[in-house]
């Protein structure tokens, strides 16, 4: 019997060893088949192949460079790209290709396609890119003249001309591209005066006034310029069909920026420097950007990206990382942010709690303000944002974001009496008591005209910082006798409800606002309170709580064409006054437009506050932030 046991045991051990070997072979054999798969189903066969051919020509027979992108030639990003890309087509909004292509009011992403000017959120300035020198308005702001740099060239070597600029606009209008839909209401035509000069003609209203000069300025930093010849080629192969044009992966796209398509599969996307980039000309940067490759690995979620960032596999991380300072203070990692001290990032947008003004009682400004002043904002900023937001004692609430430029547009002192810093439970109670909104039936909750005040506070499920903020709003309600319960639906459900023309599902709910842009703070005023968005189905534009105030609508119409600084100040101050009095919504915290944390184990000398270079922390990609690509250098050259 004992011998039998020994025999069985020996047999079992032998089998396990065999299986171990089998498994090792297994993984070796089964894996290459899927690996082949992404390589052959790469979304960019032709440019990638071209690029690889170039590479072989450039570096002789350095085939290793094809398999393994040298770490010290590559800048890795995280938090920009989720899921595989669909192509390189810049006139489509469906490419999901965020490293090279992202259109933004506050300065579009510029490594591959370029705009006329680069917006700088730090000073609100427009820095020439394809344009040469400053733009010129005519006297009544109906026409703007822009000159083009003579050095500017496309990736195929041909010059960027005024015709290209004019046709880019024409194409956008014709095929309803993002540019056409965004700028069509404000820009009538763009005409090529000569090879290097364009005149942008603004849309005018009945009285001959321009519709909105601010939007024309925004165009300069938002809309990409494309090559006319390539656009025509695209039209021809898609038979001028709008849907086909927007589905085309545009593997042959011609671009003017410093980087072009190199490689993409379901796991990563890489763009490669065009060493013939026109920007080496002294009239522009005078040199090439430092990294040869810009790469983004697709991480499954934020924690996965964070692990890679800490391990030094990611250089620039656009993710919210709670208690970011611990990474250098406690863990001793070579990680830094735009600012050394809290709030660490430059805040630009205003995550806001909106009141549904059609909910019972929320049409009453007293109830709205009472809830708003009872909320503990310090707790939100400390818990939800781990202090990565300025406090309301530092930046008092308004419709402006915390940047110096926007803060300077109104008179703080004039609205100081309307301000609140929060957690004012007694003040809120008194306000409600004075208005006769008290608990009449003794159940602990206040009634308004005999009906109990009971609300829900909603934000999308999984957005943990917002969820924490809504819990704190609910707690404030309980302290002042208004029942507020939290609800966290899935994002796809949530956004369907809040953008509906009418909804009675959410009473208090969160939505963000736009960050910095040339149209700000006017754009945010419109977003927060304009009544033009009431009753619109699929309203993504703003005023989600359907607040209406005729004076605000007047101010929204007056500001864009006003050039007198004093008058503008007066208008903005009045708008803030109305906002703080009526409280149609309230800011819960400040938040950066882009989180910008960097790991300096490979690259260093990133833009920082106070380094004197005036480069905004926009991941070295958006607007004037791309100047950072020319500034960074290797830790070990």
């Amino acid at each position, binding site marked *: 019997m004992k011998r039998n046991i020994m025999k069985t045991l020996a047999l079992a051990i032998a089998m396990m060893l065999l299986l171990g070997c089998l498994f090792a072979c297994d993984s070796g054999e089964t894996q290459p088949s*899927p690996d082949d798969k992404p390589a052959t189903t790469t979304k960019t066969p032709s440019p990638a192949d071209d690029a690889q051919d170039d590479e072989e020509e450039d570096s002789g027979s350095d085939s290793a460079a094809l*398999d393994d992108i040298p770490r010290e030639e590559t800048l890795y990003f995280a938090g920009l790209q989720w899921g595989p890309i669909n192509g390189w087509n810049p006139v489509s909004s469906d490419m999901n290709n965020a490293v090279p292509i992202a259109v933004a009011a506050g300065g579009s992403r510029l490594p591959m396609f370029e705009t006329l000017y680069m917006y700088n959120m730090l000073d609100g300035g427009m820095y020439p890119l394809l344009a040469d020198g400053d733009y010129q308005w005519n006297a009544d702001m109906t026409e703007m003249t822009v000159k083009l740099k003579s050095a500017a060239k496309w990736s195929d070597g041909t010059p960027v001309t005024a015709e290209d600029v004019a046709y880019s606009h024409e194409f956008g209008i014709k095929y309803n591209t*993002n540019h056409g*839909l965004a700028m069509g*209401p404000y820009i009538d035509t763009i005409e090529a005066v000569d090879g290097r000069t364009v005149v942008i003609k603004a849309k005018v209203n009945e009285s001959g006034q321009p519709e909105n000069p601010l939007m024309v300025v925004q165009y300069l930093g938002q809309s990409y310029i494309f090559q006319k010849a390539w656009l025509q080629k695209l039209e021809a192969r898609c038979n001028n069909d709008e849907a086909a044009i927007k589905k085309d992966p545009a593997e042959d796209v011609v671009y003017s920026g410093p980087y072009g398509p190199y490689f993409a599969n*379901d796991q990563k996307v890489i763009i490669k420097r065009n060493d013939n980039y026109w920007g080496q000309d002294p009239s522009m940067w005078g040199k090439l950007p430092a990294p040869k490759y810009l790469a983004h690995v697709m991480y499954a979620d934020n924690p996965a990206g964070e692990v890679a960032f800490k391990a030094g596999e990611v250089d620039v991380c656009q993710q919210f990382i709670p208690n970011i300072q611990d990474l250098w203070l406690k863990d001793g990692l070579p990680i830094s942010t735009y600012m050394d001290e809290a709030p660490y990032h430059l805040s630009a947008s205003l995550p806001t709690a909106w009141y549904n003004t059609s909910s019972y009682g929320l049409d009453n400004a007293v109830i709205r303000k009472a809830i708003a002043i009872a909320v503990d904002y310090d707790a939100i900023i400390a818990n939800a944002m781990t202090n990565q937001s300025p406090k309301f004692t530092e930046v008092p609430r308004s419709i402006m974001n915390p940047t110096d430029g926007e803060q300077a547009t109104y008179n703080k002192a004039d609205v100081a009496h309307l301000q609140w810093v929060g957690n004012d439970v007694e003040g809120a109670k008194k306000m409600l008591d004075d208005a006769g909104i008290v608990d009449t039936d003794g159940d602990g909750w206040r009634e308004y005209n005999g009906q109990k005040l009971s609300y829900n506070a909603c934000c999308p499920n999984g957005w943990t910082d917002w969820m924490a903020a809504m819990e704190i709003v609910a707690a404030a309600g309980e302290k002042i006798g208004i029942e507020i319960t939290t609800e966290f639906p899935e994002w796809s459900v949530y956004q369907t409800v809040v953008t509906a023309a009418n909804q009675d599902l959410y009473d208090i709910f969160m939505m963000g606002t736009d960050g910095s842009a040339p149209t700000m703070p006017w754009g945010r005023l419109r977003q927060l309170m304009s009544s033009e968005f009431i009753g619109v*189905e699929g309203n*993504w534009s*703003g005023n989600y709580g359907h607040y209406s105030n005729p004076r605000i609508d007047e101010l929204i119409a007056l500001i864009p064409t006003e050039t007198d600084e004093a008058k503008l100040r007066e208008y903005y101050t009045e708008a803030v006054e109305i906002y703080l009095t009526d409280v149609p919504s309230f800011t819960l915290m400040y938040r950066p437009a882009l989180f910008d944390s960097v790991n300096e184990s490979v690259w260093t000398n990133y833009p920082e506050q106070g380094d004197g270079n005036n480069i905004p922390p926009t991941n070295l990609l958006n607007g004037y932030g791309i100047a950072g690509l020319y500034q960074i250098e290797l830790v070990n050259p």
Partner: protein
Amino acid sequence: MKGYGKYFGKKIIWFLITLVAAVILNFILPRLMPNDPVAAITARTAEGISDVSAVKRIYETYAEQFGTNKPIPTQFYLFVKNALRGDFGLSFSQYPRSVSDIISSAIWWTIALQLPAIIVGWLLGNILGALAAYIRKGFDKVVMPACLLASSMPAFGMAVILLVIFGITLKVAPTSGAYSYTMIPNLSWKFIKSVIEHYQLPFWSIVIIAIGGQAIGMRSMSIYELNADYVKYSRFLGIKDGKIVRYVFRNAMLPQVTGLALSLGSMVGGALVAEIIFSYPGIGTSILQAVTMADYPLLSATTLIITLMVLIATFVIDIIYGFIDPRVKAAQFDS
């Protein structure tokens, strides 16, 4: 042999009925979710656009393309008609990518991770379980609690533990991806080595849990069989131990085979945790995204694949049982 024909016929009819019901449910259930996927795509496209009528136009264009503005019966007819040709339409969440393209580029990763993991876990688990039952004593005292621990641990717990120990603390294994983040896929030894290294943690996070569950099941079955009358009788007759073990193993295996078939059937949806924790490519994350983004076409197609695989697996098991287990055969013929 006539009995077998009747048995197969009945099984096939039930298989087809279940399939039709599953297809209908696959179509209807995602569409019952109270959200509008077209609105989500519109939101993405509307970036930088403040004009209200322009946003409305974007919405209508997409609704037309996806056919979401058509009545549900028409949508169902189109869905079935196209699905029969293997065309599941365009994905909402990854528009304009086709569902077939998404699935065909991701599913191989899932199969390459799951298939070996399930088989290795199953084999090792059954061997350990059978040995524990047969040897008892010290071996069982170690194996049994270890297996209980492994099988009761949630999949994400095991994945995170492996990640923290081997990936972050010891730094002996990579933490994310299917190959080095600096590499581009190619057929070189360096790349294959990188793939094998990245394979380890996701693989073992699945295998260890599978071993635990299988071993416990196999051990109980074996102990039960070892005490069965026929074993005692065989011993009494003086039949050799080796031969008795073979009888015992074959009988104890039957329920385990069902377990294997079912886990192979549900393999496609099963690697979600490993895929998310290790950012490992595969179909699981696509399914998750399809659920959260209400991507009906992708959701219908992936659930259809899972349904089909489970159905086929159970069908095959039923058929095989008819051959290998006389008790099932007898029961079926009686009814």
